[in-house]
Structures are given as C-alpha cells and as structure tokens.
C-alpha cells in the first residue's frame, strides 16, 4: 500500500512537471512570436530618408529687442531626415544700442551671426506630432562695435575726457548644447522652444578690453543659459 502511494505520488509529480514545462515552452514560444511580429512591424515602419524642411523664426530675440537695449532677429532652416535627425542652420542679426547714465558710456554694435548643428528627436515615438530634441551647435560671429562717452571728467586732474572708440573689430566662436520640444498646432504650423547652454571656445575682444554684447551670444558675463521660442512652418 505504501509502495503504491509512493509510486502514485511520483507519477503525479512527473506529470505536473511535464505540464509546467509544456506551458512554459508554449508561453516562451508565443513571446518569441510576438517579438518576431514586432520586429516585422518595425521593419515595415520604414520612412523616407528626406521627410521635409522647416523654416522658423525666434520670438525671444524680438522680445529682447522690444524691451531691452539689445536683441536679435533670428531665423532657422531645419531638414527632417527620417523624423529622427534634423540638421539645422540658424542665421541671425544681433544688435545693441545701450547707454548707462551713471557711467555716461554708450555701446553700439550690429552684426550677423550663424550657427550650424544637428538635433536628434529623442521622443519614443518619432512620428508623433510632438518632438523632443537634443542637439548641438557650432556658432560664430565677426562684428565691430563702438564705445563712446560724453561729459566725462578725469577725477584727479579734472580734464574733460574724450572717450570715443569706433569700429573696433572682434569675433566670437562658441558651442551650444540644445534641448527643446516642438508640437504640431495646425497644418504645417508648429510651435516650439529650446533651452541652450553656451560655451565660448575662441574669441577676440578687440584692443580695448572687453565687448559688452556679442551678436547671437548675448551679454558677456551673464548666465551661459539661453533660450528660443520658435514659430515653425514645416513642409
């Protein structure tokens, strides 16, 4: 009787084990099939290499121009490659006309600048109406600036001072790390913004010390962070 019970227990265990193995095998197989289906779908998700072109204008620079002594007009051309890679060319014109009544100094400059780089769409679904970008830019500008002072006096000797520097040549080269998003609003019309971290890589401030505003880079000595808010037309 004891032997019979033991053999029946063993046979039950074997039977259950075999069933479990079978179930596991079936579920693993079905998973493999699902993965294979997915990869087949992914293969089917092939899009054209060239997906379009977008032209955009920055509003932040215009706002700066309206409410402060400096700012810039900026437009960008962006190419869409497979909804993933976005080579970008940005062209702008920076201008400043600032004076300080305390120091009686005035600074003027106007010059073009450009940036070139690439953005990567890091969104999970790259074909979504929303895009999340991470990218980098190389930027440069060659510019001239004027500094003039009126009513200046030598504090010790008391002489009237002429402080007038015209057409001082300078240049700036810098890199930008970019993080941004944009979203489709209607038809080809999109809106987006970007935050940028700037890092100067080479510069020539001219022969009189520093420059105050660098077209496209902003005021020297301020935060290295910058930003854009873009109105975009994508074709």
């Amino acid at each position, binding site marked *: 009787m004891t032997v019979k019970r033991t053999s029946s227990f063993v046979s039950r265990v074997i039977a259950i084990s075999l069933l479990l193995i079978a179930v596991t095998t079936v579920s693993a197989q079905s998973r493999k099939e699902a993965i294979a289906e997915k990869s087949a779908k992914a293969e089917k998700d092939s899009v054209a290499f060239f997906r379009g072109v977008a032209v955009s204008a920055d509003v932040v620079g215009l706002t700066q121009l309206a409410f402060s002594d400096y700012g810039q007009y900026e437009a960008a051309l962006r190419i869409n490659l497979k909804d993933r890679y976005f080579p970008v060319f940005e062209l702008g014109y920076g201008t400043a006309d600032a004076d300080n009544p305390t120091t009686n100094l005035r600074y003027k400059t106007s010059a073009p600048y450009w940036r070139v780089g690439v953005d990567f769409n890091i969104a999970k679904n790259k074909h979504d109406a929303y895009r999340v970008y991470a990218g980098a830019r190389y930027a440069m500008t060659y510019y001239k600036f004027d500094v003039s002072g009126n009513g200046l006096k030598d504090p010790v000797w008391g002489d009237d*001072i002429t402080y007038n520097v015209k057409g001082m040549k300078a240049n700036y080269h810098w890199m930008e790390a970019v993080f941004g998003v944009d979203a489709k609003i209607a038809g080809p019309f999109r809106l987006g913004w970007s935050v940028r971290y700037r890092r100067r890589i080479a510069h020539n401030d001219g022969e009189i010390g520093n420059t*105050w505003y660098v077209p496209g880079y902003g005021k020297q000595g*301020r935060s290295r962070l910058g930003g854009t808010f873009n109105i975009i037309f994508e074709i």
Partner: protein
Amino acid sequence: MRTSTISTAIAMVALFMLAACSSIDCPLNNRVYATFRLDGDITKMEDTLTVAVPRSIDYKDNDTVIINRLADFDSIALPMSYQRTTDVYVFTIKQKDSEMRTTDTVWVEKENNPHFESVDCNPQFFHTITDVKFTTEAIENITINYNKVTYNDGKAHFLIRFKGHSN
C-alpha cells in the same frame, strides 16, 4: 503628452533662472596707478613725502595733493591722468632729522589707451610709459622698471632712489 508637460516645466524653470542671473562684473581694483618702489637695499623711507599734481585750469585750486605727509614707506602708488601725454608730479620731501624741505618735479611721458569692461563700469585708460624726467634736488635717480600701467600689475613701474640714503 506627459513628456511634453515635464519638458515645458523644465523650460519654465530654466527661463526663470535665466532671468534671475544678471550681474555687473566691474573690477574691484579699478584705479590705474603708477607705482614707484625704493631702489637698492633700503626697505623704508623715513623722511616725509608729499606729492601734488597740477590740475585743469577750470579748477579754483592750482593743484591737488595726492599723497600727504607719508612716512615709513617702501613704495608709493600715484594715479595717472586719463589723457594727458605728460603727467607732472611735484614731490616735496621733508627730512626727518633736519626738517628741511626739498621739492622735485617728475615728468612722466606716456601713451593713453582707452579700456572698456562694460557700459556699467566707469571708463578707464591704460598707459604705456615712454619716458621719465626729473629734477635732482632730493631725487638721485628714477628708472622705468615696467612700462605697461593697468589696474592689475604685479611689478613696480619705476625704481626711485633718493639722495642721502644708502638705497
């Protein structure tokens, strides 16, 4: 959609930080001085020194004192004019023992170069010293040691030796 909301929040914080980060970075040491250091072995001048400079004719007083009765010094720093090509300093030395006063005049010839930091910082002029001349009542010799004058020079611009001292 959720990613976009988070991204928007990050951007807003970044922009507020951007707006908050404004500062004026003018140099703290913003006066341009020419420094005269005692030449030779002497470490301290015990006689009393007063230095005056002639001012613009617009001023009621003809001159202004820039160092008043300084004693026990090993070097002095004198402001330079912004745009004159020659700065004139009148040195009056009162001897410690005899209390006898002697006056010498020093002419420093220089080129003036405007210097700019920011519209928020006072204008400055840096200088390149080209020559120095002096009378020799109490001063024995002055030599140019370093001819660039800015607000951040580590070297003395002139080495000065007075008569009657072993320096």
